[in-house]
Each structure stands twice: as structure tokens, then as C-alpha cells.
């Protein structure tokens, strides 16, 4: 069976500085992988390289997504094929209403996949349902995307987008940062509802806390641009106790 995501020897640099240093990772359908690591290890860089953010130069390795060459695709194509990145810092887009954005994104993906586009009322119905599950005030959907949203609201909005777009692979970059415990629970519940046999997840986090709510199958330690250790969910607890110091020195 082809892996959902297969990263081999991935090297990437930005502004002439090498950040990813030969990274290997395999994620199969149905699996949740946690990636933990110290600040500056390259966790966000990995998520950006996977989603195709401009500015990164791939200097080595390959990435296949459902057997296809991910790195050859434009960001919108990757999304339509089922890759979703929940941003660590969701952006504010003044002048673009949240609902318009959601509808445009959903229908653009459907169109690219050769599926029928959904009518505005259909999209609205789905969005309202999800908003309710995520305790998002429907009034917020009329506001410009993320503008004036609190940190927690932005993360819930990311989760809503993810649920609406039903991706094959979810990459969550520090979805827990800036969330109080109630918001964390709401977001984690939202993510857990998306657990499915044909869907994989990469949960990037600095802290173990999130993994109490989203329980991973595999935990990796990312340091200096490489996976330096892989284990079960108990590895997260171990890291919580010992910190990242040993991995930092190991990598250096």
C-alpha cells in the first residue's frame, strides 16, 4: 500500500540558510503523527515546504503524496489533492468575508477535482453546522477573514476550514499555541472528529499538553532540521519531563 505521505532526505533552505537537513518521515492513512521539537528546529518550515509556500529552495530529497510528486505541485493543487495546513499564525485578510473565502476555497477545490460546485446556501448550511460544533458565533462568518478575531477564534476558524475542506492529510502547526484550556478542548474535539481511517494527521507542537487531547500513534522529535528520534505516545511524556536539551546538543 502506498503511504499517504512519504518524505525522503528532504533538504530545504531559505534566504541561503539551510533549515531542513535530510528529513525522513512516513505517514500512513489513519495515523496521527506528532512532531515535537525545540523552537527553531524547523517544524514550521516543514509545514510550509509541504504546503508549497514560495521562498523555500528544495536542495535535496523528495516528497510523495498518495504516490504523486508533491513538490512539483502549486499550493492550490496540493490543497485540492487533500493537503491542509492549519497555520501557526493564521493571516488576517481585510475585505474578504469569511464566508466568501470558505465558499471560494471549497468550490475551487471541488472544481479542480472535477466535482460539482456547491450552491451558496449549501455551503452556508455546512459552514453553520461546523461553526456550531466549534462554538463559532455565526456573525463572525460575515466579518472579514480573521480580522479582529482573537487568537483562539483564529485557531477555531482554521479548524472549521479543515473540517469543511475534508482533507486527506492535516498538518497542524502549533494549533495549541495561544489557546486557553476551554478553547484547546473545543479545537481538539474538532480535530478528533476528523480522525478517520483514510485520513492522516501531522500534529506539530512544542508542548505535550495538546497530545493529552489529540492522542498520537507516533511521536517524532525534530531537531536541527531532521527527525532525531521516533517513538510511541510515551515519548511525548518523556520529553515533557526531560526537555529538549539532549536533542539540541545531539543535533549540534
Amino acid at each position: 500500500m502506498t503511504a499517504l505521505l512519504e518524505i525522503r532526505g528532504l533538504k530545504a533552505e531559505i534566504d541561503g540558510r539551510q533549515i531542513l537537513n535530510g528529513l525522513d518521515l512516513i505517514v500512513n492513512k489513519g495515523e496521527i503523527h506528532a512532531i515535537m521539537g525545540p523552537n527553531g528546529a524547523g517544524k514550521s518550515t516543514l509545514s510550509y515546504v509541504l504546503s508549497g509556500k514560495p521562498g523555500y529552495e528544495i536542495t535535496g530529497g523528495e516528497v510523495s503524496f498518495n504516490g504523486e510528486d508533491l513538490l512539483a505541485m502549486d499550493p492550490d493543487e496540493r490543497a485540492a489533492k487533500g493537503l491542509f495546513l492549519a497555520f501557526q499564525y493564521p493571516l488576517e485578510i481585510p475585505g474578504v468575508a469569511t464566508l466568501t473565502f470558505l465558499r471560494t476555497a471549497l468550490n475551487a477545490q471541488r472544481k479542480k477535482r472535477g466535482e460539482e460546485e456547491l450552491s451558496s446556501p449549501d455551503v452556508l448550511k455546512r459552514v453553520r453546522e461546523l461553526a456550531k460544533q466549534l462554538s463559532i458565533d455565526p456573525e463572525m462568518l460575515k466579518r472579514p477573514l480573521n480580522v479582529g478575531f482573537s487568537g483562539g477564534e483564529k485557531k477555531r476558524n482554521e479548524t472549521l476550514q479543515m473540517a469543511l475542506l475534508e482533507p486527506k492529510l492535516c498538518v497542524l502547526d502549533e494549533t495549541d499555541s495561544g489557546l486557553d484550556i476551554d478553547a484547546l478542548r473545543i479545537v481538539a474535539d474538532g480535530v478528533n472528529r476528523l480522525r478517520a481511517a483514510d485520513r492522516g494527521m501531522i500534529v506539530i507542537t512544542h508542548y505535550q499538553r495538546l497530545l493529552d487531547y489529540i492522542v498520537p500513534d507516533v511521536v517524532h522529535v525534530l531537531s536541527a532540521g531532521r527527525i532525531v528520534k521516533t517513538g510511541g505516545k510515551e515519548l511525548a511524556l518523556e520529553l515533557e519531563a526531560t526537555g529538549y536539551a539532549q536533542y539540541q546538543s545531539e543535533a549540534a
Partner: protein
Amino acid sequence: MNAEIRPVKTAAEIGLADLFAASCASLPGGRNIETVRRGAFERFVAQGLPHSRVEAWRYTDLRRLVRDAKPLASRPDATAKEAAGIATAAFANLGFRRLLIVNGAFVPELSDLADLEPGVSIRATVNGLDADDADGVLDGGDDVATALNTAFAADGVIIAIDPGVVVTRPIHLAFVTTAATPAAMFTRSSLKIGAGAGVTLIETHEGPDRSDYQVNTALRTIVGDGARLDHVKVTSEGGAALHIATLQAEIGAEAVYSEFGLVTGGAVVRNQLFLKLAGEGTIANVHQASLLAGRQHADITLTVDHVAAGSQSREVFKAVVDDEARAVFQGKITVRQGAQQTDARMMARALLLSDEAVANCKPELEIFADDVQCGHGTTTGALDDQLKFYLMARGIPEKEAEALLIQAFVGEVIDAIARDDLREALSGRMLDWLKGRE
């Protein structure tokens, strides 16, 4: 000697002089009108075509941009009228009172003049000229573009609304050029709104893409005390056209004046607006959007003159500039000594979509009163790559992502249009423009 040395006359200036000499006697009007025309043309000759050393025309050098004078357009024949009727679909289904001006001539038989609201009068400018009465027809305006307009004006529309009459059905002046051969059109219109009256006036200007024509159009409006004017001007001339438009507005006390301008077409466009907030407590809102591509050049030049106390003005200008196009915005707010408690703000923002695109923004304040709130600002920038990536990461293709961001940028000025039907129609125009980019 430091007397100003007149530069050598350009081909266009010589051509205009020949044209005036040849046509002055046959232009509509009697002796009075002819005197006014000659005076205006002399004023033009004294200044010549404006060039970049004339401050008000700094970025729009007509000596360079106008290569020659075109022959005056002849009054439209049956074919031209028919073509015009078909050509102008703009706002056709919105039920507005449409008045058609073809090749510079008002065409009553193709205009909707039925069931005029009591207190509203509409007539052709040529009738006013033929009556040889310059008052209310050719008055106002001493700038060079208006001087040329006065010299050559052949027709247009004169609208008067009695005091207290609120006209709910918008009036649409549809200016259409059908001329396939190079021609010049000079139209002069007037709108007088009595105290406490109100109206929405829409102007659209369009013409064929491949025709090298020139339009000089002028509108003078007097908005009475407590009256309301919503004025919308859509400049979507053909791709080779020169379009010079002058709006002069004198706005009375407690009157509310809203201006919306959209420029999408024309090779060279100069829209100049001279607003005089003549009374106390007047409100003026001006929103402008220029969507430019290719080698288009569009200049919006605006002066807002706060004469009396307690008036308010807002000016928001947005330009989206692609390819090698150039957007110009010059805005000057003057606050006279007596205009205490003036509240005036001006903002110009340009979005440049290519490395060769240019925006020149020059807002100015000239304040002679001490108790006022005034401000202005400008920004110029490219599309935000981070925002574009965020949209693309959600599956939105690049061009569509750009379109969304451009729409968001222009949205603020379009949202200022009060009427839903107009706002939607103009959003549609913007979307058409965006589609043209794909």
C-alpha cells in the same frame, strides 16, 4: 527678462486653432455665445495645452499626450444612433431614466423622456445655445480644459430639479461614441438641484476600442441648500480614446453630495473635480476607483474647497495598476479662514500589479482656519504574497486569489455606493475587469 517664454506650439495646438477658426461661426449659438467662445479660446491660447510644469497637470502632460486635433464629430446619423442604442447596455435593465448622447449630441428620440416627474426639466444643451443665452449653459470654469470645452461645446443635457422635489428614479446620461474615424466630441451639461431636492445622476462614457477619438466633457452642478446629489461616473472609453472630464460642483449648506467614480477604459483619462462646499454643514463624500492595465494613463485631480463652517468631506481613492499603466491622484483640500470645524480627510491607495506599473499620489492640505480636523495619507504597494499564499493553500488558484485580494482592496470604495442595484452593477464591472486579467 523673466517673462515666461511660450514654448513652440505643438501640432495639436496649431490644429485646435485651425479647427476653432474654421468652425466657430458654425457652432451652435448666436452672437453672445460666440463672444463667450472666443473669450474662452483666447484663454486657452494664452495657456496652451497644459504640460508637466503646470502644477495641476504635473503628471498628465497634454503637450506630449495629445498628438493632434481631431475634426469635430458630426451630429449622429441614423446608423450611428442605432449603433449607439445597441452598444450601450450599461445599467439598461435597472430601470433608470436613460438619456442618450451619441457622438457628443443629445438624442431625445432615443432617450427616456416619458413621464417626467413634476418639477423636473430636461432639455438639450444645443437648445440653450441656440437661444443664445450663455447663463446656465456655458458659465463657470476658468481652467484650461473647461476653456476648450466652452470654445467647442456643441451639445449635452441641461437638467433642473425644482426645490423640494426628490427624484427617486436615477437619471442616466449614457455618452456613447460610435465614430470609427478619428473625431473630437465636446459636451457640456448642467444639473441644477433646488433646495431640499434630491437626485441620483449616473454618467457612463464608452466607445469603440479601435477608434482614436477625443472626448472633452464638462458638467456643472449646483446643489441647493439641504439638497442631495448622488453622482456616479463610469469612464470606460475605448482603448485608444482621450477622455477629459471636468466636474464643477457648488454645494449648498446642509447639502449631502456623494461622488463615485470608476475608471476602467480610455488610453488617456483626466477626470477633474472641483468641489466648492459653499455653505455651512455641507457633507461631501468622494470615492474613486481606477482599474488600469496596458499602457493606460488615468489622472484624477480633485480640489475640495471648504468655504463655510462645519462642513465635512471624505475622499478615498483606490487605484489598481497593472502592466505599464499609470494612475495619478492629485487631491487638494482647502479650508478657508471662515471654515471653522471643518472635518476633512483624504486617502489615496495604489495597488501595483506589475513592476512597470506606476502610481503618482499627491494629496495636499491648505488650511487657513485654526479649529479644524484634517488629514491625508497615501500608500502604494504590491499584492501581499503572504495573503496570496494563504488563499492558495486553501485551494484557490493564483489568479483567483489575486482577484479576491484586488476585490478586497477596491471593495471599500464600491461599498460606499448607497443604492444596492448600482453597487451590484459596479461590482459587476469590477469583476469583468478582473476576468479580463485572466
